[in-house]
């Protein structure tokens, strides 16, 4: 049986038993059939379930309230009565203002939280991206075995795919290998940008708001010096100047005529950390010659009528033929076609769904509580209702009255919920991490309002249904006798107990999820990364190509800035690296170990690498295990060490003698490639480099993220492999933030056109990586807290009501000399009983949620016994405490007074 079917069977219990016995099997069969026919999207399911519940609710009412005289049907009632009913409902609610306020607050809180969460899910996951026919767009990756399904595409592969594939209308490539330093328009700034082929904008189907996009002519080698800029850059730096399309901007010291401005919503391709791009320029290089250079990202628009699967099949065939034709280059390179939408939201989808699920559970718990309160209130109103029935009011009339009361509560609560959601969304967009795509644009739109309205109506119906079912059984004669303890009362108490058990079970599910995430986060933040990030400031530098064309110039700059920084009074050491730890740089590369036979194509040894200056290890406190690290005396070359592809144009002075390059490796690399020998003095090559000698082994560090185990890694000296884009790392004794101004002054004293906007501490870099995780965890924790609070109220309410019913009995027991401790135990056990049943049900659900979220957890199993033990104890303790208060009250009963009223 599916969950849906199970839920439907549960809902069917709202019908009278006779009806159920006769029709249940047929109704379930029909439900299953209709569900199969319903659309499987989230929206489709939502519509289906709304229809199911509305249908159920309408017919339950008819079945539950059968003795309906013809003239008293809702249809024959004049509409003028509605105003009267609403006024009457308002009077009833203001008669018990505390209860009404509490119910409204509860509803506003739960609907607000759910609506805010839905708005985020809607913005990030459901809303289509602002591209033409976004469902036709795909990303085409290179796949290398199961471990690496998303590799950058080789330039020659892109050229072949574009020529051969028929599944796509158009295909375009994107590369991220350039820096875009903007000068001459305010402070120098490092822009986020990409180079794209001229097909890019037609593929995306987005037109500029000013000017035009570039054509194939401007994408030819030697012609690429034109740019499109983002609406934000246009606004911030150029005051939305309408004549921008006839102006040039200075990028990397060279003039780039601006062709046009892209609309504000167009934020593709996202830069590091999901940042929106500011600038697009043509690739304009003969990339088809760059065989084996894997540096492209490929987007394509599917031809009309072609599915992703068909495109994948065609690309499989193309990849297979390339593998045959170019075994040296393409052995083991397959293709992976993925819908663009799911690729863009993939990183956050599961976490968001977990959150949304948790919020849904909070909503249900809130519903249980509201229903509980209304059932209790219905009890106090039985007398009134019985009088009205006796005076001739039809049951429909009364049902209608109660429904309108529920409706008024739901409307006010829902409106409050929307206001709260508005505030929560504002809060979320201000503090949310950048790497959740489009989160910044979350807002309340028509769809979110519809959701809030549906949530209000559904809660109104769900909790309105329950007290109504009780009232339907009102026997006039019974109710007119005051103080009678009829059967209905025990039925009501049973219903309230069931509601509380459901609350405990639902709370268990959320709290277990929150517990698992909290423990994951705790373990994650207490991982030793192998380096010391405290008191270190990171500053990104990107030297413009035009002024720093030679390796010697680049090295000279870094040498002098590091010397100046190290001389500052509060600085302990200064260094630089091309990939800041936990930054977005990816650095896996093929290595060939000398003295070993060449492995077959596709099975080359790989390692990550970093280019660092001599003081890098000292600045980050990385321990040296064997040998030495780099020295300033390590031979300096005027040339890059690594050639990235065999056809790369050879640099000048290539024939000058090279001194032996050196490398430092980490423990993992030593263990993996030299398991039983001393790696010092061994040699390896990187791509098309000369051979590199290992001079030292350093401690493993977690350079990619806290969650990833360290892998093989080697370091090259900046002396020998000077990069233009590096990150300065400066360790100081003082608060790192106070260093920023001093660092900026030093940079500008060497080159006043260098942007240095990206100054932050290394701890911030690391934190940024886990900030989404932290956010999800704290939100889950907050929801769990809400659930626990609501559950406490529920248990307290039911136990104190049950105790109040037994005041009489307790008084007599006390008079007969019962031990007060025994009586207290009796009451507390009553509360604990509810909790235990709820826990037993909840543990199963919690485990299922944990399984769904398993790959979001870090070093903890979804069934972690410690978490469950802790939770069970916590829930039991809360239940005991919530029962303790009414128990204490019961013990203060004066037996003499009880006996006197008898």
């Amino acid at each position, binding site marked *: 049986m599916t969950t849906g079917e199970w839920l439907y069977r549960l809902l069917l219990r709202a019908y009278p038993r006779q*009806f159920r016995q006769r*029709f249940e099997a047929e*109704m379930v069969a*029909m439900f299953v059939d209709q569900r199969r026919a319903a659309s499987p999207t989230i929206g489709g399911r939502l519509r289906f379930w709304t229809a199911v519940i*509305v*249908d*159920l609710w309408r017919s339950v009412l008819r079945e539950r309230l059968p003795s309906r005289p013809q003239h008293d049907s809702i249809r024959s009632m004049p509409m003028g009565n509605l105003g009267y009913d609403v006024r009457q409902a308002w009077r009833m609610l203001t008669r018990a203002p505390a209860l009404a306020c509490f119910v409204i607050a509860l509803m506003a809180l739960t609907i607000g939280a759910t609506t805010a969460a839905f708005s985020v899910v809607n913005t990030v996951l459901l809303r289509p991206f602002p591209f033409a026919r976004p469902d036709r767009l795909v990303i085409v990756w290179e796949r290398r075995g199961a471990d690496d399904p998303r590799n950058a595409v080789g330039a020659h592969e892109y050229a072949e795919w574009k020529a051969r594939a028929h599944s796509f209308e158009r295909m375009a490539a994107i590369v991220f290998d350039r820096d875009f330093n903007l000068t001459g328009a305010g402070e120098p700034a490092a822009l986020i940008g990409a180079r794209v082929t001229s097909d890019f904008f037609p593929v995306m189907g987005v037109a500029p708001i000013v000017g035009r996009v570039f054509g194939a002519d401007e994408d030819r080698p030697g012609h690429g010096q034109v740019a499109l800029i983002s609406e934000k850059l246009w606004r911030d730096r150029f005051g939305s100047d309408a004549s921008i399309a006839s102006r040039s901007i200075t990028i990397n010291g060279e003039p780039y005529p601006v062709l046009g401005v892209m609309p504000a919503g167009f934020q593709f391709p996202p830069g590091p950390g999901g940042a929106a791009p500011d600038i697009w320029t043509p690739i304009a290089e003969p990339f088809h010659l760059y065989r084996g250079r894997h540096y492209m990202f490929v987007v394509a628009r599917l031809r009309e009528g072609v599915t992703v699967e068909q495109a994948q099949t065609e690309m499989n065939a193309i990849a297979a033929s390339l593998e045959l034709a170019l075994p040296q280059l393409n052995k083991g390179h397959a293709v992976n076609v993925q819908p663009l939408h799911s690729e863009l939201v993939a990183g956050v989808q599961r976490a968001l769904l977990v959150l949304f699920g948790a919020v849904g559970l909070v909503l249900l718990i809130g519903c249980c509580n509201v229903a509980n309160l209304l059932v209790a209130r219905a009890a106090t109103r039985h007398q009134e209702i019985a009088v009205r029935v006796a005076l001739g009011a039809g049951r429909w009339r009364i049902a209608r009255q109660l429904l309108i009361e529920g409706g008024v509560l739901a409307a006010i609560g829902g409106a409050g919920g929307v206001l709260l959601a508005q505030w929560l969304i504002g809060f979320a967009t201000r503090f949310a991490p950048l790497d959740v795509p489009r989160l910044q644009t979350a807002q309340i739109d028509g769809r979110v309002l519809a959701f809030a309205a549906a949530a209000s109506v559904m809660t109104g119906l769900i909790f309105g249904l329950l007290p109504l079912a009780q009232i339907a059984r009102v026997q006039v004669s019974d109710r007119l006798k005051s103080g009678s303890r009829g059967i209905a009362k025990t039925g009501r108490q049973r219903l309230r107990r069931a509601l509380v058990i459901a609350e405990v079970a639902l709370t268990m599910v959320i709290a277990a999820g929150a517990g698992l995430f909290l423990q994951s986060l705790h373990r994650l933040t207490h991982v030793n990364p192998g380096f010391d990030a405290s008191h270190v400031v990171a500053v990104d530098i990107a030297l413009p190509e035009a002024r720093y064309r030679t390796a010697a110039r680049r090295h000279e700059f870094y040498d002098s800035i590091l010397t100046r920084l190290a001389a500052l009074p509060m600085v302990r050491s200064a260094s630089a690296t091309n990939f800041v730890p936990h930054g977005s740089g990816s650095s896996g590369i093929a290595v060939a170990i000398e003295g070993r036979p060449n492995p077959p194509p596709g099975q080359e040894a790989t390692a990550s690498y970093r280019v660092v200056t001599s003081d890098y290890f000292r600045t980050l406190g990385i321990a040296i295990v064997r040998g030495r690290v780099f020295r300033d005396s390590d031979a300096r070359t005027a040339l890059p060490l690594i050639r990235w592809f065999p056809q790369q144009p050879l640099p000048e002075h290539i024939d000058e003698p090279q001194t032996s390059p050196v490398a430092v490796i980490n423990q993992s690399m030593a263990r993996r490639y030299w398991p039983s020998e001393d790696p010092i003095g061994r040699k390896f090559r990187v791509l098309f480099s000369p051979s590199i000698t290992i001079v030292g082994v350093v401690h493993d560090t977690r350079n990619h993220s806290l969650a990833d185990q360290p892998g093989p890694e080697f370091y090259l000296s900046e002396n020998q492999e000077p990069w233009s884009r590096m990150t300065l790392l400066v360790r100081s004794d003082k608060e790192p933030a106070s260093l920023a101004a001093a660092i900026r002054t030093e940079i500008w004293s060497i080159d006043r056109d260098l942007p240095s906007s990206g100054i932050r501490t290394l701890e911030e870099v690391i934190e940024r990586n886990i900030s989404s995780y932290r956010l999800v965890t704290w939100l889950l924790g907050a929801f769990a807290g809400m659930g626990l609070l609501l559950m406490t109220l529920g248990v307290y309410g039911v136990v104190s009501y049950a105790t109040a019913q037994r005041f009489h009995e307790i008084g007599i027991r006390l008079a007969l000399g019962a031990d007060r401790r025994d009586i207290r135990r009796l009451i507390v056990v009553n509360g604990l009983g509810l909790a235990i049943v709820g826990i037993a049900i909840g543990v199963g659900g919690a485990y299922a949620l944990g399984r769904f979220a398993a790959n979001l957890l870090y070093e903890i199993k979804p069934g972690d016994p410690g978490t469950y033990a802790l939770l069970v104890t916590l829930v039991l303790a809360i239940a005991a405490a919530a029962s303790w208060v009414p128990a204490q009250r019961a013990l203060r009963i004066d037996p003499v007074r009880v006996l006197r009223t008898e």
Partner: protein
Amino acid sequence: MAHRLDDAARALLPLTPAVLHILLSLSAEDRHGLGIAADVKDFTHGRLVLGPGTLYGTIKRLLESGMVEDLGQPSSEDDDPRRRYYRITPLGRRALELETQGIESILNVAKRRRVLRTS
């Protein structure tokens, strides 16, 4: 006897939309619940989708009023044993007839007064 049937049928009028559509569906042939829902959805071009609650709630009242009879489980082997077939009774057919005659006379007025254009 015919008069008695007419009187009994008249007492059941007016028919609710759900009743009208279900009787209309059964007037063609005996059907099970899902078959009725599918037929109604079909001939109303999807304007009326009967949920299980509405459908069986209405069937229950139709059985009680004697407009429909329950034929029980299907006889053929290949049918879903959970399904039961329903048949319209002479009373149901008469009520349907009277109701649709009423609708027809309204339609005729509407056509004469050009509220409804005849195509």
